[in-house]
Each structure stands twice: as C-alpha cells, then as structure tokens.
C-alpha cells in the first residue's frame, strides 16, 4: 500500500541489487547487457535513466516490467520480487502499442476491464484520465485517426487508468517532433504533480532528463551500470535556458559515454 507522504522518510520502493543480464548471441557466446547494476528508487520519485543509445536502458526497464528476468541479482518492487509482468507496474511504450481495434476510451479502460472493474466505474475512471491528458472529445476515435502526440497521451492515460504504483516510461517521446516533445514534457510534469507515482523514465535526451527528473542516473555503454548520479533540485516548472539548468546540462553531457 502507498505510504502517507507527510512526516515520514520515503522508503526505497524499487531495489535493483547486483543485477546482471546476459543474452545468448546469434553466433556463439553470451552478450552481457548489464552488470553490477545497483540502484534504488524512492516512492513517488521521478527517476530518469539517461545514457547513450543502445546502452541497455530499455533492457533495465524490461526487467523491472518483468518481460525479462535478470540472469543474476534481484529486482524488488514494494518488497516483492519481480517474476513477470503485472498490473501494479504500468508501462508507456516508445511505439505507443495502442490496441488499434479499440477506441481511445476502449484503450484507456482496457486495464480495469481485464481486471474485472464494472463498466460504470471503469468508464468514469477512464474519462477522468482522458480529461487529465487533454483528450476530451476524442473518446470515440480510433488510434489510426489521431496524431503521434495524441497517441502517446492515450498511452499515458491507459497506464495511469490501471492505477499502477510504478510507471515505466520507455522513451515515450522519442518519436515525436521537437515542439510536440516539449509540450508533452510540460504536460507530463503537470499530470505527475497532480497524481504522483513512482516513475522510471528512460531517455537519451539530456534536456528531457533535466526537465523531468528528481534524480538522474547516468548509465554506461553495454554492459551497462550506473556511472554517475545527479539529484536535480531545480524548482519546477523548469526553464530550459536557466543558467543552473545549462550548467548541469554541460556537466552531465561531459560524463556520458559517446557512441556512434
């Protein structure tokens, strides 16, 4: 159960301990995606995993989601070891992964529906989240008819509507144009401040990381591990041109590994 926020020290909500993950390579031998991976996430913290492209950020998210299990080490969420996908963890995918045969409403209410929530209650809840992401009026549209930014809003509403304790976001704005991306970041912050969740957000965009994060973990190239950690105390909403913002931007950019 979620803790009261007032007066208590926030506990470690997600714990990744000595995580190592290997895949068999196509030819022979093993490909090591992650090793010595240790980090924790506090309840209601907005954690950003930042690292170069293909560094294994998504692999980490997939392990927390339960799609893949670590080769060794352990991942616990709220004290429970992750053994597979589960509704208490919500995921927002880079490619949106909306169900094309369902309307916006159908997508958002899917989680509660398969978990057996009654129609009236789940409709009400879905409507709340559709309104929250600013899609009122589009309830009966099919995904094929709405823009990329709107699709991702549906993805966020769908994950939120299932009331997960953790939100996993895998470069959700990676496919959007720059202008839409700024707008989505702003709106995501507003949503998160209204409805706090523990968030792990993966990105390879330093500005995005700095705009959103309570804390940034800089990851190394494969096999990935935590290279540096930054607590971001800048007041919200943040300003991309604020001198402190730019200073951090420069500092973190110099730390991160570069790949071609």
């Amino acid at each position, binding site marked *: 159960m979620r803790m009261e926020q007032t007066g208590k020290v926030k506990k470690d909500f997600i714990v990744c301990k000595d995580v190592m993950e290997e895949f068999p390579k196509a030819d022979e031998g093993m490909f090591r995606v992650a090793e010595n991976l240790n980090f924790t996430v506090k309840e209601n913290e907005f954690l950003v995993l930042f690292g170069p492209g293909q560094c294994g950020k998504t692999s980490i998210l997939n392990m927390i989601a339960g799609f893949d299990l670590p080769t060794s080490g352990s991942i616990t969420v709220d004290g429970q070891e992750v053994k597979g*996908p589960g509704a208490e963890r919500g*995921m927002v*995918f880079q490619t949106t*992964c909306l169900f094309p045969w369902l309307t916006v409403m159908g997508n958002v209410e899917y989680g509660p529906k*398969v978990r057996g929530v009654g129609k009236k209650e789940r409709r009400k809840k879905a409507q709340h989240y559709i309104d929250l992401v600013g899609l009122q009026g589009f309830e009966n549209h*099919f995904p094929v008819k709405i823009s990329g930014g709107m699709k991702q809003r549906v993805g966020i509403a*769908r994950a939120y509507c299932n009331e997960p304790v953790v939100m996993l976001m895998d470069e959700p704005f990676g496919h959007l144009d720059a202008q839409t991306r700024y707008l989505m970041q702003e709106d995501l912050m507003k949503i998160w401040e209204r409805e706090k969740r523990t968030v792990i957000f993966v990105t390879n965009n330093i500005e995005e990381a700095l705009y959103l994060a309570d804390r940034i973990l800089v990851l190394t190239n494969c096999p990935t591990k935590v290279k540096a950690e930054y607590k971001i105390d800048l007041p919200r909403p943040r300003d991309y041109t604020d001198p402190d913002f730019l200073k951090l931007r420069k500092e973190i950019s110099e730390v991160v590994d570069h790949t071609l």
Partner: protein
Amino acid sequence: MQTKTPAQERRDKIVFGTLAVFLFLVIWYLVTKLTAFGEIFPDPVTVLANIGDKFVNPLGKVTLAGHILVSIRRVMAAFVVAAAGGIVLGVTMGWYPVVEAIFKPIIEFLRPIPPIAWIPISILWYGFSEMSKYFLIFLASFFVITISVYSGVKSVDPMLIRAARMLGAKDNQLFTTIIIPSVVPYIFSGLQVALGNSWASIVAAEMVQSNMGVGWIIITGQQSSNMVQIVTGIVCIAVVGMLLVMIMRGLENKLCAWNKQGR
C-alpha cells in the same frame, strides 16, 4: 489541380463507372450489329431480354432466379462449414506449435491443388447428389481460410501482447481481447478469396454434373448450341459473383473500421 472532397470523389466514381458500363454495352451492341461478330455472338439487348424473360418463364425445371438460388445455396452451405472449420483450425495452428507442426505440412500440400481437380473424385464418391458440390466448395474455401487465419495469428504484434500483459490480461483474456481482434482482418481477406474460389468452383462443378444451377445453364446452352443462353449464364455468374464480393467488403468495412487508414 484542385483537391476534391471525399463526397465529390465518390460521386465521380459512380458517374464515370456508370458511363463506362453504358459505353461498353453500346460498343458491344454496335459490334454485333455492324460486323460479322454478330453472327457468332448475341447482342446485349437480346441477352438482357432473355434474362428478363427467364426470370418469368422457367429454363429447364426452374426460372433463372431459381437456378441462381440453387447455386448460391450450394456455395453457402459448404462455405459456412469451411469458414467455421478454417477459422478454428487456423487459430489453433497459429496458437499451439504442436497443432502447427501436425497440420501445416498437410495443408501446404493440399492447398495448391485447384478445386476442379477434385471434380472426378467428387462425382465418383457422391454422384449427382448435393454432397458432391458441398465437397468441392469445402475444398475450394477451407484451405484458403485456414492459411489466412493462421498467418494472421502468426503476425499478431508481440508488443501488443506485452502491453496487454502489463495491463493485467490473463492468457484467456489475451486470446479474446488481443489475438482474435488482430486476426479479424485476416479472416475477412481469407473469406473474400475463398468465396471467389467457391463461386468459380460451383460453376465448374455444375457444368460437369448437375440438373440445375448457373453452371447447368451454360452447359445446356452449349449442348443445344444456344449462344443466348450461354451468355445469359455468364452474365448471371458475373453479377452474382460481384454482389457476393461486395457484401463481404461491406461487412469487412463495418467490422474493421479501425483498420482503415485515413478517412
């Protein structure tokens, strides 16, 4: 060039389509009236008049409408069974690797055989009976539907399965809420091809062995050197075939609206 609204484009299609058909009939008429082609082929007016006449006066045992209905009934009876069987087998083949391993080679082997190659067997087994027609129609549609549905299950986006699992869907719910809707467009494309195959096969079957149906009209026309009757049969086959496809498309557009790009 000015862009046209969808309504204008639809109207253009209807106008030009109607004009083209009319023009085709006029050319057909003129060619048969002005050239020697008219000695070996009837003109459209005679054919249309004959079609109208045979809707009232029987041709053989029943009227033209009767023949058409007999053929459609034969197709539908076997088609429904083939569709149901093909959908079930296609889905289970796609979902269970064991079922796939067992049935896929057999189906890949039988599928390329054209339905009319089965006609001799159907006659030796079932003779004049309706069963000989059902047998053929079943073969003409079952494999097409099975393979189409099977490939539909195989091409379900694994990311959508992930998304559904993440939202709490259990295995049986994955099946009903993700697999089945993903496969619906494949079912329809299978049904459409199968229905075309079936209609072509029933005509062939009736030409070889029957006492009723549109294929029978053509073959008795040949036996009595009645060119008007042959062309009457051909026109009926074309029109009914076209209507069957249109009905299937209409159904698909209704059920798969989400799959249509753009407007």
